């Protein structure tokens, strides 16, 4: 009984697919549920505090999402400031997004959470910086950074692996460079005319269109040579990488598409003829998956394309939202540091419970002794 696993099966086994992949509808439903739960709770403590305008001035769902997106951008800036590799950035942003799928900004404002998320990501992606140094460089107290960590882990359901598209992009780059040199591996089921022919076809590819993001321009002489193709491939790679770094992280594509589809969509946006040519060598024309795959890549590319940096909140917008948030936030989680310290120490009631149990056990023991031998003659001792 031989079981064969393809690359798709490998992806289906990951937690990113099992727990953190949604259809657009289910994503919206989840966010709606979280938002409404927070609103419920808000009504409760709003009525407790007898706040006149607490109920009216809650943040809408869109505003919450914008705040989260703003802080994703903040994480990216901070990570660049630390000069950490791009994997840390991607992981941290995804952690933040996943956290706010099941928690609301009213309970845990992103301002208090994003530094911890970045610290957690640097630990996960093997660029661990010691806590005191990290705290010093972003001018925050270490306890403040550690306080929400357990909550974040719980919200992440302890699944810390984020599948990223960067390594895959390098793989595609390697294959395309080899193809340009005339060395190519044959894929099963796909009709190609051989390595040399592929190389020739590459040289005859049409120019990238206007909306393609690649900075490459055709040589002025008009005759394409192998080194021009190599330049073209490298330019497409950098453009795709920039797309993955910015728009991919600041949109929901990680929830809606797989990392392979995201990277091919970024390449598609960067240099459309090159990517189509590459996919033609991978997907046989007769397979029924081909139109679906191409459709999915196109949809993902749309999302990436429609994103622009002016969609992100400005600093003033953020400050405004945070001021409103301050009025309607959950008072129970106001002091995260104290809550964290209390959780580590163990609560008072635990101690009392232990004392009570011990006393009960001692009395029971005495009573049993009486039952067996009868009551002591000189009256109860102790």
């Amino acid at each position, binding site marked *: 009984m031989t079981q064969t696993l393809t690359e798709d099966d490998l992806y289906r086994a990951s937690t990113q697919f099992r727990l953190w992949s949604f259809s657009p509808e289910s994503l919206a439903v989840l966010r709606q549920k979280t938002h409404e739960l927070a609103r419920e709770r808000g009504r409760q403590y709003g009525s407790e505090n007898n706040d006149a305008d607490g109920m009216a001035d809650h943040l809408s769902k869109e505003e919450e999402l914008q705040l989260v997106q703003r802080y994703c951008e903040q994480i990216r800036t901070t990570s660049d400031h630390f000069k950490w590799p791009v994997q840390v950035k991607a992981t941290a942003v995804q952690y933040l997004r996943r956290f706010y799928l099941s928690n609301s900004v009213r309970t845990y404002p992103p301002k208090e959470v994003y530094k911890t998320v970045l610290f957690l990501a640097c630990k996960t992606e093997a660029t661990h910086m010691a806590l005191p140094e990290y705290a010093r460089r972003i001018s925050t107290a270490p306890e403040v950074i550690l306080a929400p960590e357990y909550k974040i882990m719980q919200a992440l359901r302890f699944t810390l692996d984020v599948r990223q598209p960067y390594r895959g992009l390098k793989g595609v780059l390697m294959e395309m460079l080899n193809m340009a040199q005339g060395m190519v591996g044959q894929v099963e089921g796909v009709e190609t005319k051989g390595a040399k022919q592929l190389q020739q076809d590459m040289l005859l590819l049409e120019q990238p269109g206007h909306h393609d993001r690649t900075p490459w321009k055709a040589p002025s002489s008009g005759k394409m040579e192998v080194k021009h193709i190599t330049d073209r491939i490298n330019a497409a790679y950098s453009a795709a990488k920039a797309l993955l770094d910015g728009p991919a992280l600041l949109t929901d594509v990680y929830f809606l598409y*797989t990392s392979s589809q995201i990277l091919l969509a970024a390449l598609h946006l960067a240099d459309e003829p090159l990517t189509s040519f590459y996919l033609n060598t991978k997907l046989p024309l007769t397979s029924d998956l081909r139109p679906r795959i191409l459709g999915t890549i196109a949809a993902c590319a749309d999302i990436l394309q429609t994103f622009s940096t002016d969609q992100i909140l400005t600093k003033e917008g953020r400050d405004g939202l945070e001021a409103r948030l301050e009025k309607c936030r959950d008072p129970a989680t106001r002091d995260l540091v104290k809550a964290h310290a209390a959780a580590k120490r163990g609560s008072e009631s635990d101690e009392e419970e232990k004392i009570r149990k011990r006393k009960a056990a001692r009395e029971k023991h005495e009573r049993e002794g009486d039952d067996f031998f009868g009551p002591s003659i000189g009256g109860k001792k102790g």
Partner: protein
Amino acid sequence: MSRLAQPKASPVSKRDGRIGGVGGPDEICPVCKSSRYLNASLRFLVNPECYHKMCESCVDRIFSHGPAPCPIPKCGRTLRKHRFREQTFEDLRVEREVDIRKKVAAVFNKREEDFGSLRDYNDYLNDVEDITFNLTEKIDVEQTEKRLEAYRQANAREIEDNMRTAAEEKQSFAQLQKLERQQARQRREAARREEEEERREVEENRKDVLSRLQATGADAETVAKEGQRVQLRKRMDRQAAQDRQRQLQAAEDVRAGNGSSNFVIKGLKAKVKAEPEAPIDPFENLRFANTYYELQDNYIWEGIQEAKKDVRQTAGGYDVGEFARRSLVAAFSGLGVFVADEVAERDRVGQDGEVSTVRAAIGVRDMETG
């Protein structure tokens, strides 16, 4: 009837509390007529050749100078001193029978597990008992002996195997180990001897070549080739001689077994040869298939090329091919996974309670992407 060798009974002398074994206080030696009454430490020995009893002093006197005929009148069989031994049973006939049974059991030592059914095993035992009976009652002794010998030759290996299993069961583990060590030592010795021989041969050959070079003064290459050919021929001859000898042995066995006294055992279970163990498969029948790419030997991307040359990367045994493979798997892992459909399927199959919410949520779909 137990098919294992009979255990050695404790010497009777201990039980009797007397030195000298069985027999009453006035037992006399048939040869010298001396009685125990006169000599308290009289011991009687018996020879399994003719089962005649005589006292120890007679044995010493008559047989110390070599084999001699038995002194009992009417029995002239040549006896040897070292075959005399203490009598274990009172009755000499029993002693004789026990010896015969021991001999037969040493040859016919199959066990019940080797037979397909109980009936076959009992038939086998019956045949063996026939042989034993013939030998004990001296009926057709010669023919029976021949049958015994023939069977022994024909099934030498199996007898050995069975004997070995019986012996192993008796021996303790430590003794087994000691045995193995010994055998290993012997094998090593044999191997070393062979090595020595080979080396000597090579030396001889070399000397031969040199002498030939000297003598004929011919071209060095031809002489060297000639020398190699000679060596090869010698080795082949030796191997051929060994093979021939082994074949002869086998042929003789077969011929010996094809006598009139061919012992046929019916109903043996077919011994299934255990097939050699397959190499360990770490993934236990799990295979990984590449559907979108074919891993090539060399990638010209400069990252790979530099890593190949960098000593810091390659010294530890890092394989850049692994990086290429991982990158390519990551590039296509999930390409055919359509998240929206599969998640919807999963939700529908998993929790029926959620269905209504999903359907209701379609009406609530947001246009946002941020």
